[in-house]
């Protein structure tokens, strides 16, 4: 319909309906579609003047014109036309134009003129015309039929006067006489108009004679004070006080004629007049104070306003006014809102006359709510009681008079009216009112506006606080459903900067009084919200709560049964949640003892797996992670911040993506800041060449197979399916072999020995442990993650970055078996200034002793042990992959620099069978050395023998190789190096000088010492196949060496076990300036590394 009506032809007048649509559109702010009707104003004006137009629509249009005058009256011509139109209407006889139309036209025209003045310059003549017209209307006092219209015209003039103060000051004399004459009900309007003119005369200090009627009313001309825009007012500041007083006296005769609303207008204007004229306030009081007994709220408010203006004049009347206000609130016939207002007035009023209020029991008991008072009223009456308690408090401080009421009694008596909150549902309105009252009473004497904290502290001693605290404790014990409400109450205090302290104290009291009384049952879970708050608060020692929770856990464990599965789970989890809260809020040192006990108990005995798991995690964290970091991890703050934008339903689907993508970014340069280093550096530095050769060997299938064939492959192959049979076939052949008793003894020893070596294929093999340390540089780390940490606070641990739940995964191309990964729960970054030093450390191989100063930094390092289970004793590189979490939740992944494994890492002591007593171990080792030495000899008769390994499934054969190495080192340094690196492998020392040297060193112990060195050497010489070895030996020593080695100090016998089952045997003939090392092994590839090793060991 609106669309249809949107563009009617211009000439055609709008229908009623169209007009209504138009008005509606304007009210909704959509003018534009009526712009085509331009000039709409003409249409409006002509419609107004048409006789056939319905009256109700005319009135509507007038109001419409008024409300949207700014859109229509864009030039003063419009106004002029409007005033002309008004003139026509006003002068028209009543039977032609309805008086209501006349009235509304006057009102609208006046309003439009006033409003249009904001935008347009008003032609003064238009204005004068209007005033003149209105004055002619009112200038017919007591005329019968148009009395109402006259009243309206007075109102119009009053509005104009309000707009231009002083406008009617010249004709005030006429107005006064009109006022005196008018006797119809319109007289109120005349009185108000006259009052308003008087008010403005006084406000602008115009020196006008109000008795003077010499200036004619019509034609009207705006007085100078208005046209000069106020400049003339200052010059004539002599008020005609005497006349004005007469006028005031006249005005004060008629208040009883006025309606309540009229009275409000009147009093508002008369008060400044009375003040300016220094009228005795008692005059006003006599005339107007009686209105306080009226049931009209407006009149009561008028009296209150007057009272507040003349406080001293009404001295002594506070009681009456207060009583009266209170009585209004008790008038059940009144609308509720006025009863509420009355109490607000009373509160505001009493606040003003605070000093004079003396609450007595008598007075206060009248504030008690009545049973049928609406809850809103009850709430405000309780406010009144709280206010009385404030007054009592202040007065008691001042005078110490004891006739005052007891605030607690007030509080308790007042609370009776909502006492049902204790058993009603917690969201009941009664509860809301009750807790609101608690709050009011509690903070009553401490304002937010004053910064003095002592007022809050005083509250603590107040009886109200003690009462309330007891009440809340009992409340929580009796009706646990109310706990959340109490929590909300405490939260409210806690969130207030001024009263958070009060909230804390409440919590402290709860800790002290509630915890011991809580009954240990399943319903205790109701109290958990408040426990949570207690746990959050750092001012409360966590002892009590932890004890309670421990008992609760015990209770849950004890009560657990088939029916309580879910309950145990949910309540246990919630209890753990409180523990978690504690972890996030308290210093772990405070918690440690009790909390670890609680958690340990839980993870041991709690029936529910999830709870056990969680408590284990918490326990681990508590133990491993320093407090601040722990709190940071546990607090969900960051998480919440990250999630909050998506928690809104609108943005649910456009979750910001950078976060996840960042999460799984692997860092390529990780190795530059995170370092995994061996604790003991390798002797052989040129690891690369060795490992390279090793890689070639191990990676290429033929080479690998070859080595197996030589050493183990036939064994393995046989072992799996064939060996048992061939073994059986072979066994009968064995007796055929020629064996002397010595060989038999060797074989026996070796059988026994090999049966102790585990077969790694079926059982955990022998392990080689490489100790490393993990550290990372804070600076580089932060830079890498893009964190901007303040560099100034580097020294503080809190400022250092940390990584969490680090998992190191190892892999190697060398045959080391599967290497278990290693977990580090927490690691702090190294302080920044240490960076250069530690970098140096990592670059060069520094002996272990240098790490002394780094011991202080142990907290910045984590020890990592790499367990290798070598299949073959070769050096190699272990690749390291790291996965960790940064503090901000980023997951760090990447490759670290590999760990080099040297041949020396493979060195293990030979296994001693368990039936050998400890004191015979050296002898056993010595014998074993000799046995193996024999067996590895090239002429050994054991070459075709096989030995069963532990477990009985695999068998090994010995195929020995030997080699010789001459070391040109003086004996002393050789002995030192041996003592340092090979001491634990030495099984025998022979030769007196050498024994003496070793004895002095005291490092090599528990070995067989043989004095007769020549014998020893000869024995060995004999034993190792006399022909070839000596021949070899001679060949080697053919040159210069043998000559220089005049003196033979003695001999070291070294037995090294190489996992999984190989051996390395050194016979070191120590001379003064050089040493000859005879090497035998049953794993020939290792000879390649040994050469380098010996050189690194002794020659560097």
């Amino acid at each position: 319909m609106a669309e249809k009506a949107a563009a009617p032809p211009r000439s055609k007048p709008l229908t009623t309906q169209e007009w209504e649509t138009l008005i509606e559109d304007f009210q909704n702010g959509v003018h534009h579609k009526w712009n085509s009707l331009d000039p709409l104003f003409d249409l409006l004006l002509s419609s107004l003047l048409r006789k056939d137009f319905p009256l109700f629509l005319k009135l509507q249009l007038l109001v419409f014109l008024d409300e949207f005058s700014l859109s229509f009256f864009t030039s003063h011509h419009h106004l002029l036309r409007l005033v002309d139109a008004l003139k026509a209407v006003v002068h028209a006889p009543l039977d032609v134009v309805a008086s209501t139309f006349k009235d509304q036209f006057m009102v609208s025209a006046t309003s439009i003129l006033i409003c249009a003045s904001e935008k347009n310059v008003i032609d003064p003549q238009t204005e004068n015309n209007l005033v003149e017209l209105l004055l002619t209307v009112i200038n017919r006092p007591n005329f019968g039929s148009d009395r109402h219209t006259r009243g309206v015209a007075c109102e119009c003039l009053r509005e104009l006067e309000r707009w231009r103060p002083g406008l009617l000051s010249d004709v005030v004399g006429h107005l006064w006489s009109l006022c005196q004459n008018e006797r119809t009900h319109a007289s109120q309007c005349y009185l108000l108009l006259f009052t308003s003119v008087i008010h403005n005369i006084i406000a602008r200090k115009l020196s006008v004679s109000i008795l003077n009627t010499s200036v004619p009313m019509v034609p009207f001309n705006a007085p100078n004070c208005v046209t000069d825009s106020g400049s003339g007012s200052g010059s004539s500041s002599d008020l005609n006080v005497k006349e004005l007083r007469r006028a005031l006296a006249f005005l004060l005769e008629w208040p009883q004629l006025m309606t309540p609303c009229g009275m409000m207008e009147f009093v508002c204007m008369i008060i400044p007049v009375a003040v300016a004229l220094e009228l005795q306030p008692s005059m006003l009081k006599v005339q107007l104070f009686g209105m306080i007994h009226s049931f009209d709220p407006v009149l009561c408010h008028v009296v209150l306003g007057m009272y507040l203006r003349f406080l001293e004049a009404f001295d002594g009347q506070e009681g009456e006014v207060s009583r009266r206000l209170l009585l209004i609130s008790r008038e059940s016939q009144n609308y509720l809102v006025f009863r509420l207002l009355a109490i607000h007035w009373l509160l505001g009023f009493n606040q003003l006359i605070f000093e004079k209020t003396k609450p007595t029991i008598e007075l206060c008991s009248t504030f008690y709510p009545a049973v049928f008072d609406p809850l809103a009223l009850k709430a405000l009456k309780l406010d009144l009681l709280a206010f009385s308690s404030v007054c009592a408090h202040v007065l008691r401080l001042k005078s110490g008079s004891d006739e005052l009421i007891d605030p607690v009694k007030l509080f308790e008596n007042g609370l009776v009216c909502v006492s049902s909150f204790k058993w009603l549902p917690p969201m009941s309105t009664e509860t809301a009112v009750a807790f609101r009252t608690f709050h009011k009473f509690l903070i009553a004497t401490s304002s937010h506006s004053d910064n003095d904290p002592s007022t809050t502290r005083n509250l603590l001693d107040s009886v109200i606080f003690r009462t309330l605290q007891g009440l809340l404790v009992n409340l929580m014990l009796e009706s646990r459903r109310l706990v959340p409400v109490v929590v909300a109450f405490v939260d409210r205090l806690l969130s207030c900067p001024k009263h958070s302290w009060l909230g804390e104290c409440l919590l402290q009291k709860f800790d002290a009084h509630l915890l011991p009384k809580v009954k240990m049952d399943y319903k205790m879970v109701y109290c958990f919200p408040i426990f949570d708050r207690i746990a959050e608060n750092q001012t409360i020692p966590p002892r009590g709560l932890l004890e309670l929770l421990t008992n609760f856990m015990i209770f849950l464990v004890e009560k657990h049964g088939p029916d309580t599965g879910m309950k145990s789970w949910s309540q246990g989890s919630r209890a753990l949640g409180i523990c978690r809260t504690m972890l996030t809020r308290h210093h772990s040192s405070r918690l440690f003892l009790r909390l670890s006990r609680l958690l340990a108990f839980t993870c041991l005995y709690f029936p529910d797996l999830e709870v056990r798991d969680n408590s284990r995690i918490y326990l681990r964290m508590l133990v491993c992670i320093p407090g601040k970091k722990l709190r940071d991890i546990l607090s969900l703050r960051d998480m919440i911040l990250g999630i909050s934008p998506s928690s809104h339903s609108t943005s649910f689907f456009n979750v910001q993506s950078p976060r996840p993508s960042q999460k799984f970014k692997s860092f390529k340069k990780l190795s530059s800041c995170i370092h995994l280093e061996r604790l003991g550096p390798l002797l052989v530095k040129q690891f690369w060449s060795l490992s390279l050769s090793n890689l070639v060997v191990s990676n290429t299938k033929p080479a690998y197979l070859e080595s197996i064939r030589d050493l183990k492959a036939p064994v393995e192959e046989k072992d799996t399916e064939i060996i048992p049979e061939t073994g059986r076939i072979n066994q009968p052949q064995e007796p055929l072999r020629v064996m002397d008793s010595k060989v038999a003894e060797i074989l026996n020893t070796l059988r026994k020995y090999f049966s102790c070596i585990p077969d790694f294929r079926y059982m955990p093999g022998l392990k080689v442990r490489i100790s490393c340390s993990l550290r990372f540089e804070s600076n580089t780390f932060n830079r890498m993650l893009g964190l901007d940490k303040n560099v100034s606070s580097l020294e503080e641990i809190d400022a250092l970055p940390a990584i969490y739940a680090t998992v190191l995964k190892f892999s190697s191309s060398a045959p080391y078996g599967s290497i278990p990964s290693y977990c580090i729960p927490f690691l702090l970054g190294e302080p920044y200034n240490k960076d250069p030093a530690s970098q140096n450390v990592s670059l060069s191989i520094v002996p272990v002793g240098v790490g002394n100063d780094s011991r202080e930094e142990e907290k910045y390092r984590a020890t990592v042990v790499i367990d290798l289970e070598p299949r073959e004793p070769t050096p190699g590189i272990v690749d390291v992959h790291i996965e960790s979490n940064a503090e901000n939740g980023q997951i760090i992944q990447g490759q670290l620099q590999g760990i080099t494994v040297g041949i020396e890492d493979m060195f293990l002591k030979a296994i001693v069978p368990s039936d050998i007593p400890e004191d015979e171990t050296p002898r056993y080792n010595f014998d074993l050395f000799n046995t193996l030495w024999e067996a590895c000899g090239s002429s050994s008769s054991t070459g075709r023998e096989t030995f069963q390994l532990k477990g009985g499934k695999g068998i090994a054969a010995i195929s020995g190789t030997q080699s010789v190495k001459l070391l040109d080192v003086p004996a002393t340094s050789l002995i030192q190096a041996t003592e340092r690196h090979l001491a634990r492998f030495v099984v025998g020392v022979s030769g007196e000088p050498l024994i003496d040297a070793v004895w002095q060193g005291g490092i090599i112990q528990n070995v067989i010492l043989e004095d007769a060195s020549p014998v020893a050497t000869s024995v060995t010489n004999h034993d190792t196949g006399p022909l070839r070895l000596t021949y070899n030996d001679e060949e080697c020593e053919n040159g210069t060496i043998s000559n220089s080695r005049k003196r033979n100090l003695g001999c070291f016998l070294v037995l090294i076990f190489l996992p999984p089952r190989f051996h390395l045997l050194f016979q070191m003939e120590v001379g003064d300036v050089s040493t000859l090392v005879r090497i035998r092994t049953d794993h020939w590839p290792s000879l390649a590394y040994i050469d380098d090793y010996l050189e690194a060991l002794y020659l560097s």
Partner: protein
Amino acid sequence: MSSGCSIRAIWILNNLDAVVFSRKFPVVEKRWRAACNADNDIDQLFASLPTHSDLADAFLDRKHREGSARGFGIRKSNSTLGSDSWVDDPITRHIVGLFINKEEEDIKNLLWPLILHTKGLYSILVLPLVEPRHLVAYARLCKRSDCGTALGMDDGLSSLLLDLPSVTGAFMVAHAIGDIITGDTVEPEVIVSAAPSVGGLFDSLTGSIGISSRAKPVNPPVASSSPSSTAVPGSVTADAPKIGSRPLDKDALRTFISSSMPFGTPLDLNYSNIFTIKANGFSATDLPPPDQKQPAWKPYLYKGKQRIMFTIHETIHAALYDRDEIPDTISVSGQINCRAELEGLPDVSFPLAGLNAANLEVLSYHPCAQVSDQGLDKQGVMFSPPLGNFVLMRYQATCALGPPINGFYQLSMVSEDKGAFLFKLHLMEGYKSPLNMEFCTVTMPFPRRRILSLDGTPSVGTVSTSEHSVEWKIVTSGRGLTGRSIEVTFPGTVKFAPWQNQRLSSSSRSSFGINADEDSDNEAENASNMVNEEHLMEKMNKDLPPVDLEEPFCWQAYNYAKVSFKVVGASVSGIAVDPKSVSIYPAVKAPIEFSTQVTSGDYILWNTLGKCPHVATIKRSNREDNADEFFNLISADEDLFIIHPSIRSLSTSLGTEKNKAVKKNENTFYTFHPLISSISPPIKGSNKIDQNTSLFISLTT
């Protein structure tokens, strides 16, 4: 209080939250803009009024934020900073703030104070003019981040409201508009002996102007919070839909607004005057009084046969507990309605007697009345009566005659779905001959339970049941009870449908995970396997919805019986207007008629065996004075008198009629329903008799 009351704008919204009517006052708005501009600090305040759609949006938005159109009124956990309920004052349910353009909740967009008055299906919003600093002060209040105003210390809402008469005026405007919307434009009822009632202003004019008389008026509008609707569903609210379906009479509204506040400043809110002037106008023959000014509230003068009529309307509110520890409270709120058909502008005066006996507490008068100095027991009232019916005076008093219905109501749940009850009531005890009880009905509402059957017969009267209530008509109209008292009993049992719906809802609630331990309660119940009334109550109360702040308490949480009755013949407070002492100046001979009508308001018999709401008693000094005579007589311990409820009523009635009161107690004995007597401990009412008797004995010895 520099400015009076001016209205910037009025909006009326319907139940669909659409603006159906609005009126703006550009002149006032101009003043607001000027005030804003004058203060440089606050020139960013919301400077222009919102369009209809913006306002409706903001209103709807607030409704969502605050839970209802009125809002919480009290700061709750889900109140947001900047909202009305954050201020934590119940009056914010009536004085609301709206954020226009909700995107940015800034003070710039705050429209305050909006007077919200809900009537019928309409919400009336009135925006009075305040000073910008007031708005800033309120914005500060609702944006303060601390825990709330400290009474007496911080600048709170109270001092703001005290400083704002325009808010008070705006409420008057809002209520007047509300009455016009719903057609409640009736005048207070005045009863005359000849006809049941007399009409209002129109009737006054019929003699002079000759306009036909209109329909007879209905009861005077009662205060907005009438609990009767909750207590007795369907009985009183029958006319509610009629009000709601009434189309908005925009013409009447426009007329009213234009005449009562042509420039936004209210001058007269008396709608009957306004509509009469609109309808009748004035003729040249309407002459003003020759030597007096005609008050603004009396635009027409009466002409015709002269007479004055007074009607005292009293409403008794009572909470009868029949318990030792809780005293009964009975209060009477009364008003004297008047209709003075007097020519000219005469003054009428009469002395008000019996104030002390009636324990009159509140006396407030029509603005036309002037009160001479208040004496202890007497008060002269002089007034210049306006036209038509008007409320001359209102008062609160106690029931000097004693409660018209006294006794007890006991309900005991013998099983979860079956309750045994017993009434024992005394009607009109101590009431003398002119007093006539026209009807008396007792209703037992069970809003949360469905009644299956009722078993039991009352000693007097008839019983009917509806789905949710039992109604016992003791005295029916036409067979009034005059000048005699009766005692009635009604034992019976009532059977309810099983308590099922709520249980379902409660279980569904627990499935939300709010209460993991709900089942443990049931376990306990099953374990006891007995009727545990406490437990039953707890179970039933578990999901009681919170009531509005306009209710006195959660009615549904209690078992009670509500008595409704009507007594005519004399006031129960003892207040009276002696026709002989009414004088008129200038003297005219005019018959003076006087009538009284006492009706029940919240007249509640609380289940003696259940929970009941109560309050701390007010210590009244004059009441003790009144009882002095009695104290002296029996020289009893004062404490006993104050504590024991039945004795209080004894003492008040003894003040006037000693012997009778004593006799009353002597005759009292109670019988019990067999089912109830089996549950012996809770019946404390029986003690009461013994105490009374023993007291009486001590009195005679």
